[in-house]
């Protein structure tokens, strides 16, 4: 078999494996994988911002939460099917992101980060006070949302796949070139005629859209949402942790990070506090010694390349 087909066949093999997996493993593992996919989608969508366009946003929870709310509202009051509702959720998040861009894009670096986290917090507080969305009680769906855990597994897997494919596709387009240019050197990019605001805005919206859909599906899966948890800053932070731990600005990094995170969360499920502690320590160490993240670092070290060569030779 020619070398260059190797990765693709391997990929298809993995996908096939994931597709048939539910028929071999027990439901809880299915649940774990669902969570993994959820994390992957979030991490990939954030990586679009932080990794490919240098927008360090701490407000991802807002997109996730708004997606969830829009989905819940449309599904409950307009009786949409949960998939179409989730799509609407994604759009809602995207629209919000555009609104959010207006004040925050004037800010740079650290100020942008602050601006986004503050907006996310504001949205959370607003939702708690907004009675239409059930205020602090949030929204409960009818429990039978038309699909089983298996269903959610496949849906979330599809989204994760989409989220992973997106950067790969985008990077090959005009927008992708613009983004990479901006990330490398904003002033220089502008000199090459890149309209920075527009480029950033589009990627912001795309990322928000993915996060929104993810939130929507998760809401349906939870079959009940409640502002103080769905908008929790933890969503933003753990997402970023995953990307950073995995390797910012790479395609596999977020997957790696998400897997790492899921395993950690499962192993320490009974000791949440220790989990918090450990994640913190790991993050400090990574920032100190391998700022490119575990995957980014592995990629540099020869060993993996050699391993790759061994496997594909």
């Amino acid at each position: 078999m020619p070398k260059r087909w190797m990765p693709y066949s391997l990929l298809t093999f993995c996908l096939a494996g994931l597709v048939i997996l539910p028929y071999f493993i027990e439901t809880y593992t299915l649940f774990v994988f669902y969570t993994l996919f959820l994390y992957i989608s979030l991490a990939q969508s954030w990586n679009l911002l932080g990794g490919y366009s240098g927008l360090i946003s701490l407000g991802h929870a807002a997109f996730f939460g708004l997606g969830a709310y829009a989905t819940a509202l449309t599904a409950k009051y307009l009786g949409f099917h949960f998939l179409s509702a989730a799509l609407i959720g994604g759009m809602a998040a995207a629209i919000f992101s555009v609104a959010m861009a207006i004040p925050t894009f004037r800010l740079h670096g650290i100020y942008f980060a602050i601006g986004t986290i503050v907006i996310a917090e504001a949205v959370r507080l607003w939702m708690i006070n907004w009675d239409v969305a059930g205020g602090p009680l949030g929204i409960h769906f009818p429990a039978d949302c038309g699909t089983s855990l298996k269903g959610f597994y496949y849906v979330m897997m599809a989204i994760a796949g989409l989220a992973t494919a997106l950067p790969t596709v985008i990077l090959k387009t005009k927008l992708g070139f613009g983004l990479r240019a901006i990330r490398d050197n904003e002033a220089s990019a502008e000199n090459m005629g890149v309209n920075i605001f527009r480029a950033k805005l589009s990627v912001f919206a795309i990322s928000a859209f993915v996060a929104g859909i993810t939130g929507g599906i998760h809401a349906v899966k939870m079959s009940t949402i409640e502002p103080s948890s769905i908008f929790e800053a933890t969503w933003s932070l753990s997402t970023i942790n995953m990307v950073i731990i995995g390797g910012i600005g790479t395609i596999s990094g977020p997957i790696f990070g998400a897997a790492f995170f899921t395993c950690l969360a499962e192993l320490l499920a009974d000791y949440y506090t220790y989990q918090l502690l450990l994640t913190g320590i790991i993050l400090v160490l990574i920032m100190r010694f391998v700022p490119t993240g575990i995957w980014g670092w592995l990629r540099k070290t020869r060993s993996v390349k050699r391993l790759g060569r061994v496997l594909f030779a």
Partner: protein
Amino acid sequence: MLLELEHITKNFGALTAVSDLSFSISAGEVMGIMGPNGSGKTTLLNLIMGVFSPDRGEIHFNGTKISRLSTHVISCRGIGRTFQIPQPFHQMTVLENLMVGMLYGKGHRSPKSTRNESLAIIERVGLTGRIDTEAAQLGLLDLKRLELARALSLAPRLLLLDEIAAGLVPSEFAVLKQLILELKNQGYTILIIEHILSLIFDVSDRILVLNFGQRVAEGPPEAISNDPKVQRVYLGSKDKNDTLTSQQATSPTAGKTEREVLLDLKRVNAGYGDFQALFDVSFDVRKGEIKALIGVNGAGKTTLIRIINRQLPIISGEILFRGRSIVQAQPHQVVNLGITQCIEGRKLFPELTVLENLELGAYCWRARQRRRGTLERVYNLFPALKDRSNQIAGTLSGGEQQMVAVGRALMSLPDFIMFDEISLGLAPRVIDALYEAIIRINQEEGTTVLLVEQNVHRSLAVADRASIIERGRIALSGTAEQLNEDEQVKKVYFGF
């Protein structure tokens, strides 16, 4: 007329970078702009590119007004600009770097369609071998080539080249010069800013000389190179400093040259990233003398200072102070050894008062206890500062600020003090005052002085010995008298 500037003025706070400047370039013409540091050349480019918008005046490009448009629009109109320090997209390959310009500047839709054109440009600038190399991997010459290629990828009607030859070794320099000449022959309209005058003189049809953001002279190269006004801008005026030379004569120059070596640089190489600024520089300063280091900017003067007080690591070589190596020292430790610099552009703490600025000069423990006394000495050196001592430094005039900077340097009780371009952008009278101060420092305190200057005559007048640095190399060394024959110096400066 392709590009027209009408009465452009740009102020940054107090200082005027460009004042009421007008000129125009017609299609197919190559125009050179020269002038000493801080004469507003780069600001001019930024004004054209819309990085800043002018306070007064308008810029027209090819018939339409472009001032107050945003940069990306202007570049799409067909102005390609290269940066003094190359600014490629480091994590993208050479080809991808160009594709950005093709897609956005030239308005292609899909990356694929741009490939062939990009390859054509790459070939033209001679990067063919490096198509898939990441920009971060390129050497300086290739970076300069890439910089050109990126500008060309916008299919520009006008090229703005900002000190494109800076930091190149002669061989590379020749290549680049050739490249620019080719572009010229292909009929590109070019606006070129250069310090390396041999380049600018050979390439341009017309040269505009700026100083303090104003036109000093304009005309064909030959006229410019013989224009006394221009020479004064670069070499400084001779007539001004009789007073100083007389003082110089009285000072016991004799014997100073035999004194022991205080600072000794041995074959030092240094640079920023892949930009090597110093090549095998060997250089010494003897105890109690005034040594001048002369050179156009971009020659590596400031770099030399930065490596002496350890702000910049060296690639190879040795730095000895009082015979001991200081290569391992940290900047804040160097001060304790008795080395101080008076930083180029003053660099006062703008929101602190004059007094606070001076006091901070005496931060290092050695100087701190005796700071009262030192302060008195500084005050009678610059009486002007005494009654301004509680004024916020940022609000002082340029000359006063420079005085504070000198005073601040003295506060650390240095044995060896480096003055970096202290006459920069100051009126002659102020400069006189500063130079007198320097002489007093040297004679009364016995402090060893390294004087870094563009202003040849002034510095040679006060110095005991001098070295001339050219493109990172020591070109000439000797006593001030030896160097004082203009021809040699002129050669270094004007390259003929």
